[in-house]
């Protein structure tokens, strides 16, 4: 009886997402996250290299460098926060 009900309900909401669609969407994101698989050492190394590149162009704090892999809806993002220091030096650089 339950199957019959479910079948009838299934006819009623054909527009909604099937469970296999949900599974596929979830798996795609989970697998990306799993595959990134950076060891803490590699993560530190990447952090250091990014800091070096950014500091060639502006004065940035070497302590305040946050780094995380974050999920936002359909996206997997690498987010970093770098504090720009010494605003005067920066302004000075521009006017020079």
């Amino acid at each position, binding site marked *: 009886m339950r199957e019959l009900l479910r079948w009838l309900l299934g006819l009623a909401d054909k527009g909604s997402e099937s469970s296999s669609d949900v*599974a596929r969407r979830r*798996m795609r994101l989970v*697998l990306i996250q799993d595959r990134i*698989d950076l060891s803490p050492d590699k993560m530190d190394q990447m952090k250091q290299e990014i800091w070096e590149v950014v500091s060639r162009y502006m004065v940035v704090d070497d302590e305040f460098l946050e780094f995380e892999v974050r999920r936002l809806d359909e996206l997997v993002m690498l987010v970093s926060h770098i504090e720009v220091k010494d605003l005067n030096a920066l302004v000075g650089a521009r006017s020079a």
Partner: protein
Amino acid sequence: MKGRTIVITSGKGGVGKTTATANLGTALAMRGHSVVVIDTDIGLRNLDVIMGLENRIVYDLVNVIEGKCRLRQAMIQDKNRLELYLIPAAQTRDKDSITPEQLKALCAELENDFDFILIDCPAGIEQGFKNAVAAAGEAIIVTTPEVSAIRDADRVIGLLEASGLHRPKLIINRIAADMVKRGDMMGQEDVESLLAVEVIGLVPADERTVAAANRGIPAVHDGRSTAGAAFTRIAARIDGEEVPLKEPDARPGMFNRLRDMVGIKGRAYSHA
């Protein structure tokens, strides 16, 4: 002769590795090849019962490796006298009883005399997995169309790549075509695109495999088993024959639909 050593692995337990190993080994032997299947799940052996050879075990894999017996003494011949032999796992030891190098040496020796050596890998990614993978030249991943199995399969594919086993092949096991049809199970394309490896076989959910396990006779011997037929086709593909992939059919017929609606139980989609 230079045989091929293939590891059958999955990451997650209970997706059908042992059943796949027994069926592929049997099917390859039925094609006229000489085959050895090795159970490397030390402490939790099962390939012997699936093949119906549990009463014939005298020596096991650890005995061979420790030199307690000769290799041939630990090889149990198939009941149907095919050129098919089982080396059972030890039941009272643990995975650390053997090293990757030892298993590798054993398989190298077998490759001189046999066409195929199939390694039934334990679940997980610890020592038992490392042993099994080190000895193999090729890998077959078994998964079911479920999120947990697929995630673990993806991890295993990464680990295989890292240990130099490239281009593993994928068996998608226990596909319930009627569920795929109504959108409650991921289908071949879904799984294939997620894992990005070549699919070598699609095995339907088939309750006859449970009966086959009960009897200790692999489903490839059962002419009415759809899973058995699928494994026979996979064996042909492993053997280099070009056989098209066959998508499992949704259960046809009014009776089954009625039965589904009324909710009579009698389908077994989950078994080891």
